[in-house]
């Protein structure tokens, strides 16, 4: 990949108290792409310093707002820097940076505006059983409410075109943002593809990640968001 192409691609990472892993995550991404922006969501550890030392542009929220808000802040920055493609990437090391380039290539070839990573299009994920059940329920909910057919509705690995980022903004600050983007894609009939990605569940990521009971909270946040529109 040429430097010019690299400078059009920005990898955005939302991070909250990921001081022990963020440097490795940023380094793994920067082995392939130069432009990485980390939005530190008011961490109480050294996340911002570690990310900066690893070579990322770092934005810091003065108050904790949630992953959705942090991603949007980072996306806004990337657009201001002239990004043609924005890649959303998890901070905790669950995603594989070597999969960014082929996913980006697939998106460019398809002519679509969004590439959504799916852990279920590949067997390369050590997903725990309880998480499988919760994701299955989320999949059913999304298919019923958003009328979008996907195999993985809660994957943070995405490639978004500049056009899409200019037309969509995350309004859900917390975990409901993952469903919000899918609702927008369905409602606006955005062209998208699904791309197989691997998710590596480590003891760290499982301990840090979402509790399965958060699924109820996400559903209620989406319902309250709908109520607040009317």
């Amino acid at each position, binding site marked *: 990949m040429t430097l010019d192409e690299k400078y059009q691609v920005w990898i955005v990472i939302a991070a909250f108290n990921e001081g022990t892993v963020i440097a490795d995550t940023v380094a793994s991404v920067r082995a392939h792409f*130069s432009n990485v922006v980390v*939005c530190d969501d008011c961490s109480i550890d050294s996340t*911002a310093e570690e990310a*900066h030392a690893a*070579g*990322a*542009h*770092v*934005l*810091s*929220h*003065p*108050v904790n*707002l949630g992953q959705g*808000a942090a991603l*949007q*802040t980072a996306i*806004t*920055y990337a657009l*201001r820097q002239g990004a043609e493609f924005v890649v959303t990437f998890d901070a905790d090391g669950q995603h594989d940076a070597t999969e960014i380039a082929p996913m980006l290539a697939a998106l460019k070839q398809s002519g679509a505006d969004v590439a959504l990573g799916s852990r279920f299009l590949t067997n390369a994920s050590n997903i725990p059983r309880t998480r499988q059940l919760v994701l299955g329920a989320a999949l059913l909910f999304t298919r019923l409410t958003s009328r979008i057919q996907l195999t993985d509705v809660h994957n943070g690995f995405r490639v978004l075109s500049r056009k899409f980022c200019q037309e969509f903004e995350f*309004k859900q*600050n917390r975990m409901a943002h993952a469903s919000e983007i899918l609702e927008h894609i369905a409602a606006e009939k955005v062209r998208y593809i699904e791309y197989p990605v691997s998710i590596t569940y480590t003891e760290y990521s499982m301990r840090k990640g979402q509790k399965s*009971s958060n699924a*109820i*909270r996400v559903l*209620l946040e989406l*319902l*309250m*968001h709908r*109520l*607040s529109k009317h």
Partner: protein
Amino acid sequence: MFAIILTIVFIFMMAYSFVSIKSAIIRLTFCLAYLAAVFFVWNPDFSTKVANIFGIGRGLDFFMILLSVAIINSLVLVARQIHVQHMAITKLARSIALDRVKKPAENDLN
């Protein structure tokens, strides 16, 4: 029909209270209160027996249900206002973060 709507609203508010309130005791109190409300919606005669103990007649049931609806409505309106304020805080925090960006050192860009 009205009883069904009220039951759905009470169950939704019970679920929302359960996931939104951190204190276990307060969470349990709200859940029990909403469960009691559902019970009284479907068993209004029982509420009369309770009211009679305190020397109050049945007419109070209708008033209490209306009061419940008014309170729930107020809570939803307050929740919406909090949501609007939260969006404003988000915009402000984002603006601050973007103004104070820390870029990597020049030699890290290669």
